[in-house]
């Protein structure tokens, strides 16, 4: 059976059998797409597999890319209400030349929160990472700011449109240095809340989860469907 298994893996575009230690969190939108398509197939409803109606974009392949970045620790974290800094990095090399990017959405999950355990409001800043000019230092620096968003708590996942940037990265992989994420707390550091803020930041570092949802369209695989529709 081993031989056939390899063929199946190739069919899926995999080199070898994946062996994840644990499953990555799957966003509800992906689960919904799967469930909807299964229900439509079972009901015999004709489907356009090259249009993702739940996201409103053309595409026949969705990838939730895992963040390969790392946390940064600097002196700045102890001042100016800085909470955390992190380099976000997404490897787009799995996207083949034939595929056209139609959507790239960054998802930032700041972790669970509830009205019973309200944290301070946050400010999320997202910048393009640039290479450090100082030789011998490997830490990236924040470049052009892409987004600055105030985040009242509790808050679910935050989403940012990165299509233009992902297209640029995909065309020029050497430009992909990642994104620079900074999170600040918006409360004043009064004497009574200092410990609580540090606790909030430590909790954020533990629970922060970033992923990039990328939708691509392979015209060769979608040509037939569009002809069928016509």
């Amino acid at each position, binding site marked *: 059976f081993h031989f056939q*298994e390899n063929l199946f893996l190739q069919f*899926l*575009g*995999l*080199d*070898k*059998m*994946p*062996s*994840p230690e644990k*499953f*990555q969190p*799957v966003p509800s939108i*992906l*689960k919904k*797409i*799967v469930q909807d*398509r*299964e229900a439509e*197939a079972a009901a*015999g409803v004709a*489907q356009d*597999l090259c249009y993702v109606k739940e996201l409103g974009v053309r595409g*026949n*392949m*969705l*990838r*939730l*890319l*895992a963040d390969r970045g790392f946390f940064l620790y600097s002196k700045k974290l102890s001042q100016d209400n800085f909470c955390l800094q992190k380099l976000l990095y997404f*490897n787009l090399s*799995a996207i083949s030349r034939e595929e056209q990017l139609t959507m790239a959405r960054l998802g930032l999950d700041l972790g669970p929160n509830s009205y019973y355990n309200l944290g301070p409001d946050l400010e999320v800043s997202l910048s393009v990472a640039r290479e450090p000019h100082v030789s011998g230092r490997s830490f990236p620096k924040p470049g052009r700011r892409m987004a600055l968003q105030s985040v009242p708590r509790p808050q679910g996942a935050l989403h940012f449109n990165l299509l233009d940037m992902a297209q640029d990265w995909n065309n020029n992989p050497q430009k992909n240095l990642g994104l620079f994420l900074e999170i600040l707390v918006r409360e004043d550091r009064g004497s009574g809340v200092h410990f609580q803020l540090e606790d909030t930041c430590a909790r954020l570092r533990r629970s922060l989860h970033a992923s990039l949802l990328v939708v691509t369209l392979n015209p060769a*695989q979608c040509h*037939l*469907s569009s002809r069928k529709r016509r």
Partner: protein
Amino acid sequence: AASPAASPACRSLCHRHQLFINFRDLGWHKWIIAPRGFMANYCHGECPFSLTTSLNSSSYAFMQALMRAVDPQVPQAVCIPTKLSPISMLYQDNNDNVILRHYEDMVVDECGCG
């Protein structure tokens, strides 16, 4: 598990056989998130000339069967899928990326002679 035919006489005629492959049996449940298995239905059975018109056949299957009656070298019409449906697969790759991919014409819904 093959679906039972209506009667012994019909058992050998072209029809869809249901077959479900559970990914857990293959150990693939460790990286395939959804679905839990694959409906690997297949078509099997005879396509006799007398029944090519009733076995969900294409017009060409009838013509082929007719030609075969004249010239035995013409191959017999064969039992093939006549209606297929797609599947979506959600799995995790070697880089911890979650992939959702759609595959057209993956599940056999109906069979016929062609």
